[in-house]
């Protein structure tokens, strides 16, 4: 297995372009993500965030450009790369009629997790849902489901974790707990994370750096504070609204 060196970025995306039947979803996106960074990918609907994440997960192939993860070409080493990644989305679910521990056992098997049962217990305890392990996933509240999904996403101790709106269905209390936990896990394990969210408070709190996408291009990149300053706004939320309403006026070519 080839390991990325400390200096080599975990994710290297160069001139990524993705078209669907002539419609441009991602026009030209280049970015790097360093080891241990949490990078937020932001933008209004249709900006190209989801497509970019799907390309990084190998679910969609790029029209052009290159994607390297852990220094490996994604297209040629898809399985090897996915073995070291994981994904959590508010828009996917684990089979509803399986128990929590059964779902985690299956997913752990897919990643070949050693000492799986211990790992499962650890994660369930970490997310304070150990008492739910014998419940079917369909019986859980959306907050509990999200936490089970996060357990699934951390089962293989991923080096790269892609999170697609992980707090979308959570109440403010649980969302706050999840954000803090993600930060804690990242600090302890040095996991690299790519994070998409429409909740700008999430992003400001969790992300080291953000990429602002609009119409398939990156229009701003930097720490949340740098991006806020660049757009002369008071918060990321205001930046988001400005970009969503007048992105074209900001000199973005499509």
């Amino acid at each position, binding site marked *: 297995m080839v390991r990325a060196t400390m200096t080599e970025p975990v994710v290297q995306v160069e001139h990524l372009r993705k078209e669907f039947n002539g419609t441009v979803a991602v026009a030209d996106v280049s970015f790097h993500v360093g080891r241990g960074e949490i990078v937020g990918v932001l933008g209004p609907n249709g900006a190209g965030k989801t497509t970019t994440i799907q390309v990084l997960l190998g679910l969609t192939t790029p029209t052009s450009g290159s994607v390297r993860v852990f220094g490996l070409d994604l297209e040629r080493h898809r399985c090897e790369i996915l073995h070291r990644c994981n994904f959590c989305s508010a828009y996917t679910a684990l089979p509803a009629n*399986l128990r929590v521990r059964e779902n985690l056992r299956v997913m752990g098997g897919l990643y070949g997790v050693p000492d799986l049962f211990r790992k499962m217990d650890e994660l369930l305890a970490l997310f304070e849902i150990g008492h739910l392990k014998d419940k*079917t996933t369909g019986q859980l509240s959306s907050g509990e489901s999200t936490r089970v999904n996060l357990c699934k996403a951390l089962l293989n101790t991923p080096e790269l974790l892609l999170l697609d709106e992980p707090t979308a269905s959570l109440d403010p209390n649980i969302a706050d707990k999840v954000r803090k936990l993600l930060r804690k896990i990242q600090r302890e394990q040095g996991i690299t994370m790519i994070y998409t969210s429409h909740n700008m408070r999430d992003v400001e709190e969790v992300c080291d750096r953000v990429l602002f996408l609009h119409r398939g291009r990156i229009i701003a990149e930097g720490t949340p504070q740098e991006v806020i300053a660049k757009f002369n706004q008071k918060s990321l939320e205001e930046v988001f609204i400005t970009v969503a309403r007048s992105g074209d006026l900001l000199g973005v070519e499509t």
Partner: protein
Amino acid sequence: MSWHRIQALVLRYTYLYARSVPRVTEIFFWPLMDLLVWGYVTLYLQRVSNISGPSRVFMFLLSAMIFWDILYRAQQGVTLSFLEDVWARNLLNVFVAPVRVGEFVLATYIVGLVRIAITICVLSVLAYALYSFNIFSLGMSLLPFFANLVLMGWALGMVTTALIMRWGQAAEALAWGVPFLLQPVAAVFYPLDVLPRWVQLIAVCIPATHVFEGMRQVLRGEGVSSTSLTAAFALNVVYLVAAALFFRYMFGVARRKGLLAKLGTQ
């Protein structure tokens, strides 16, 4: 190929069936309905034809029905396993895991084999109990016949799954319909020579036709035709390779068009 990933996928389907009474019932329900309807229709035909004792027509029809179910279950094993992940919005979790296409397909084959084994057991016991018909009277020749039907079912399953992957849940009806497109041509319930000449030319290109012709030959007491079995096997090899290539191609198309992600979150 990684055995632990195949094992995990099979485990996932095992849990799914163990947790769901409707899914388990579905394994028995249609074969049982077929057995009852076909069984009593043939008993009636036997009576109006004034045939006494066990007739060949009776054996032909019941054997054909049981054999057809093997093919159908093999196809369903592949396609329904895929659809289960679509319905559960779990497809993304599977395909963002390091699962290779071959491992996914192999797992669906194994699930299909288990479904077939259960179906055969139930049907053979019921056929014996209701009609004193013993499918195992065909002897060892059953095995190559079964194997060929399973291979053809797998090939059909891969093609239907690939089509669903390409056209989404709108194409779901194919999961149940595709085998029945071939049924009239594959000489399942009647001999090949009943079909018009030009249809026969198509029929001989279908592996199942040779299995059903061979099965009738055995029931007539003429022994196993190695020609039928070889033809069926050779055709199955060709179709399995073609189906695997088609599946792989469609998987590529689905990735290019972003359909896997769409199907996984629908």
